[in-house]
């Protein structure tokens, strides 16, 4: 029997955006179900409620296909955090974030947090190839450790010998570097008219993940949830000031009010 989600009123909204096939659904699935399984390209958007301590966080996993482009701004309305996802092996997927997805976030909250996430790191980063679910990150990879901090080195040396990477033979040329993502973050802040000084630093919101191995996935979501806490608390306060606002009213109204901060 499903527990009634009626009781759960979402406190805050997080949206996953990014081109098709970058792994948005896989990331969310890894986080919520602790598994990596076959996905089907998402249609429209899928809504999830995640219990985070005493809070309910709603997460929208959106479709990256152009076909569903116009719905993006609706999913983003009132978002407290947007996860802009790209595929580290696919430069175009990073470019798409700026060209196609950034404008969709115009409907998000003014204090919305933007995270830039390079997924499929297992294909480029030997550290990301180890499953994080079973053991902690293994220690015996000192030679690769360096490459992780300086990803360009890796592309110069596509098959480092005697690393787990060479075992799988899957290390590809990295097409998007961490620096590229950081640079994009800077441009996003500028687009939003935000001061770099007063905003979250890039190190805090630029991630490289692997839905396949679980690498950095929990870190990504949990960091973000922590970051949106103030937003949650503020909203809870607002609601306490008007205790008569019940879920139904809130939900029904949200579709009417153009810039509702609700849900």
């Amino acid at each position, binding site marked *: 029997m499903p527990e009634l989600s009626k009781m759960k009123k979402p406190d805050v909204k997080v949206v996953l955006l990014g081109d098709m096939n970058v792994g948005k659904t896989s990331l969310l699935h890894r986080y919520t179900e602790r598994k990596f399984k076959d996905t089907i390209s998402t249609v429209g958007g899928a809504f999830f409620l995640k219990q985070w301590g005493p809070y309910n966080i709603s997460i929208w996993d959106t479709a990256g296909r152009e076909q569903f*482009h116009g719905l993006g701004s609706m999913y983003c309305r009132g978002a407290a955090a947007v996860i802009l996802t790209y595929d580290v092996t696919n430069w175009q997927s990073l470019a798409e974030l700026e060209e196609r997805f950034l404008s969709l976030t115009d409907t998000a909250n003014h204090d919305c947090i933007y995270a830039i996430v390079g997924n499929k790191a297992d294909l480029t980063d030997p550290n990301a190839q180890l499953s994080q679910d079973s053991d902690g990150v293994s220690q015996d990879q000192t030679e690769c450790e360096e490459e992780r901090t300086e990803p360009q080195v890796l592309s110069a040396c596509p098959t480092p010998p005697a690393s787990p990477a060479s075992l799988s033979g899957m290390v590809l040329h990295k097409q998007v570097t961490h620096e590229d993502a950081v640079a994009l973050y800077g441009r996003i802040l500028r687009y939003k008219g935000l001061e770099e000084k007063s905003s979250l630093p890039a190190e805090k919101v630029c991630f490289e993940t692997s839905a396949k191995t679980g690498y950095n996935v929990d870190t990504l979501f949990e960091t973000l949830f922590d970051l949106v806490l103030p937003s949650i608390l503020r909203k809870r306060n607002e609601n306490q000031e008007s205790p008569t606002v019940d879920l139904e009213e809130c*939900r029904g109204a949200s579709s009417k009010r153009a810039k509702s901060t609700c849900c």
Partner: protein
Amino acid sequence: MERDNHQEGEAQGVKICDSPSESNPPADTLATSLSLLGNHMFPDPVERNDGTTVVKEEPADLHLSDVTAQEQSLDAEHVSNQVKKLETEAAENSECQNNESTETTERGTEDAAIDNDQSDSGEFVVTMLAKAKLEEQGIGVKGRSSPLLEAGTQESPAFMSHRDEDVTADSWRQHRKHVFVLSEAGKPIYSRYGSEEALSSTMGVMMALVSFVQSSDNIIRSVYSEEHTVVFLQKGPLVLVCVSSSRQSEQQLRGELLYVYYQIISMLTQASISRIFEHKKNYDLRRLLAGSEKILDGLLNLVDSDPSFLLAAIHCLPLASSLRDSLSQILQKAITPNLVFSILIAKNQLLTIVQEKTVIEDTRLEPADVHLLLNLIGASSAFQAGEIWTPICLPLFNPDCYFYAYISYLDPPECTVCLLLLSTDKEAFYAVAECKRKIEEAMVAQNSLSLIAKAQSYSVSQVGVSDLRHFMYKPFDVPDNYRQLTQFTSPEMEAPYSSEGEKMRLLDLYRYMHSRIHSTSRPLKLIYHVAERETLLAWVTSKFELYTCFSPLVTKACAITAITKLLRWIKKEEDRLFIRYPPKYSTTPNPSKSSRGGKSDQQDSTDNGFLSLL
């Protein structure tokens, strides 16, 4: 025998309805194109038995045609080999236009001869193809003698994608049914097997064929060879092609292509597609359909394995009428403005459907639209814990605008009971999601989920008629429902039809019977067909369409008695087997006829936003 047949086969050719005499120049070009096509698709002629026929004609009714022939008693027998066919009319002459390649056995000698001798009767004209060329190329592959006995045995309806397939391999060629979609400009859009890129040369040849016929103001409709039927369907700027060795009728194959077209429309809308190609003739539609291949793959697998598509009717899960009514009432109470359909599905079958009064007043929900919805749900529910919100067009309801579909499973993690709510308001997600909470709550209160879990399809043994193995019954007379929702009922397929191969074989037999019943040239009311391992009887009246399958030794008289019993049983169980009175609600203060109106809701078809990206 093969030799004779071969001679006959040479005489087959192009059938053109309105340009009878200009045979040679077109035939040359056409033959060249056909040869090329043959080269691409079937390069290894095994036997040079190339009866190839091209049919062009004015578009006919693509759907199930009305049956017009008089009902007659069983009075003639037509025996060929071990297969005995008994039809309402003696299989005399003037059967020529009947281009069914599904003729049971020995199609070769007899039928080919009939085709040739008589094809100038009626509206068709046979034109000789440049036969020498065709012989060289050998479109036909292996000379099978009895398609009905063999078809389907190698079928594997497993849901899988074949994108990576090597299109030069034999296995690729041997797929039972290929489906291709291309743009009018010849750009590949979809291929069921293998990637479109790898197939671009094949598609190019098909395009050459199509444009050749378009240039002479005709629409090419189909090409027959001994082993394959190639059917073309042009819809707006899209060209759909089916290459099938399934021995289905052209009409059936065209119906299947139409489903593929509608599924594409359901994702993009007809208006958007026209607009895209108006702006840019050689637009690559794969840009917009990327990611949707699995939906089309899934549809084609369903079309092959689920008779709902053949019958153009909906199969609902049998349910005590009291339970169905209570579920309907739950749906009826959980409403919000602009909600137009509330649909409850279990095990991929309909439980109940409730609809908005005004939207649907003057019309009914077409089974095809429901099939497309069910397929979409099946293909998009990999991640079942979430609540999905997606635009969807119901092409038969209105091909030009979107509804917004809310899809959610009510019984995670099993995910067998699915709620589908359709709204006309793009922004209504939270309001519609709230309807789901209400529905969920009410279902918990009434313990509906565990009652639904007990519901299941029925066994044919419940009918209590020995020798009856399976049936499909599509009524036209269930009070108040046919007009709104065309349905059929059918028991589980049980032994000897439990394996996938045997299921497919039975379905092929049904498809054959169906093609005879619905033949445009010579529709039949009643067919008694003795096949090798079973006996089938198909019967259509003004009140129903019925297909039955008996053990092989049943006599005609026995079968008739059995059917009488079956009909009585169905009548008795009617309330449980069908959705009797689809209930309604009212959610639109000012009726949103817009969704129907077409023009009035232009904005709806464009504001999905992708057009701005072109």
